[in-house]
């Protein structure tokens, strides 16, 4: 698992209070991890803070799963 993926997973576990095993690449924040729309806004903010990237609202809407988040952040960082 990449460094970014590790850190994303840690943030998700912390913010949503879910078990680490559930935070798989395909896990959907809302459908699988019990987040609501406000939780996802907060998650995106936490990603921005942790990785020093800006995630515009239209991009944030496409980030539905753990894998989506990792992919977006890696694309910005590279």
């Amino acid at each position, binding site marked *: 698992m990449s460094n970014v993926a590790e850190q994303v997973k840690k943030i998700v576990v912390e*913010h949503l*209070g879910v078990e680490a095993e559930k935070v798989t690449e395909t896990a959907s924040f809302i459908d699988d991890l019990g987040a609501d729309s*406000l*939780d996802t*806004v*907060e998650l995106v903010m936490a990603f*921005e*803070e942790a990785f020093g990237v800006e995630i515009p609202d239209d991009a944030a809407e496409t980030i539905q799963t753990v894998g989506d988040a990792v992919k977006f952040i890696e694309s910005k960082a590279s």
Partner: protein
Amino acid sequence: MVSPLGCGAEISWQRILEGQSGSRRVENFETDDLQTKIACQIPRGDGTDGTYNPNDWMEPKEQRKVDEFIVYAIAAADQALEDANWKPESDEDKNRSGVLIGSGIGGFQGIADTAILLKEKGPRRVSPFFIPGRLINLASGYVSIRHQLKGPNHSVVTACSTGAHAIGDAARLVALGDADVMVAGGTESPICRLGISGFNACRALSTGFNDEPEKASRPYDKDRDGFVMGEGAGIVVVEDYEHAKARGAKIYAEIVGYGLSGDAYHITAPASDGDGGYRCMEAALKRAGMTLGDVDYINAHGTSTPLGDEIELGAVTRLAGEHAKGLTMSSTKSSVGHLLGAAGAVETIFSVLAIRDGIAPPTINLDNPSVETEIDLVPNKPKKMEINVALSNSFGFGGTNASLIFKKVDA
């Protein structure tokens, strides 16, 4: 109830009767530059021995989203509903059960912290939970969702009269048929640097007892110099009498009177002639079909401010007339401090327990009364007496007043 004397109504009451004070030196934030360095803070711990453990009431990840006044309200509402054994399951029961929890200030700490965050990191760092975690009516909102109470979902904001207004208004809603059961009361978490600075600037808080915190709240005593800020929540279940009787609920007392008035005088000072408090008690008595001669015990607003205590005492004395001699009146703020928006609610509970146990709680630290009075202010020791009717006063900034009258059931 969550009070500076413990998590739970019975433990708080027991400690009041023992003459304990909840006032302590503030240790959890910097007080060096504050005039007041003391407060009545909730004893935190692992939940044993009357301590309050927020994790017992709300998951840590949820607590991050809200200010403490909401967690206190959830804890107190859970206790009240458990004690009342009311767990609505049918649609009908859910729709006929409502919530009316107020707060004087709401999420002080979170607003202060977020203002700093906004300045330092900009608007994109403001949490989506900032607004729903600070709004005053979200205490009601959270309790409504948690217990599926789908009737009236309401709130009150009337400074230090909030708790009394919430319970009085809830009783009205029940009496008018809007609900059969209302979960009602007040909650407050004002103890932070901003809260103390603000009330210090109003010259409202005690400043002279930083080294003897347990002596600072001393209503009616000649050495009093302001109130001691408290925190916590008081919540009761207000229920239609026939509804409660039919399901065999434990009934503590009946709400027989509720009066409201405005001073129309000054934003923080009470009207010097006590006119607002007088008319408010008068209105509650009229509603109850009583005179002050029918009231055995008064739980005073009595905050320990130089001005307010004597004005309230004067209003009670004038309203009592010839009955003043037989009256018993004490201030439980001497023990728990001033819980602001939760004050009238925790004092409702203390008044009702005074009726149940036949005992008037003491006004602790009342060593030298500042004025002579025929009214028994119950200095320092509780007083065993039959209490059939109790009246509780709450007066708030903005000149807002509320009085509630409780009566022993079948008395």
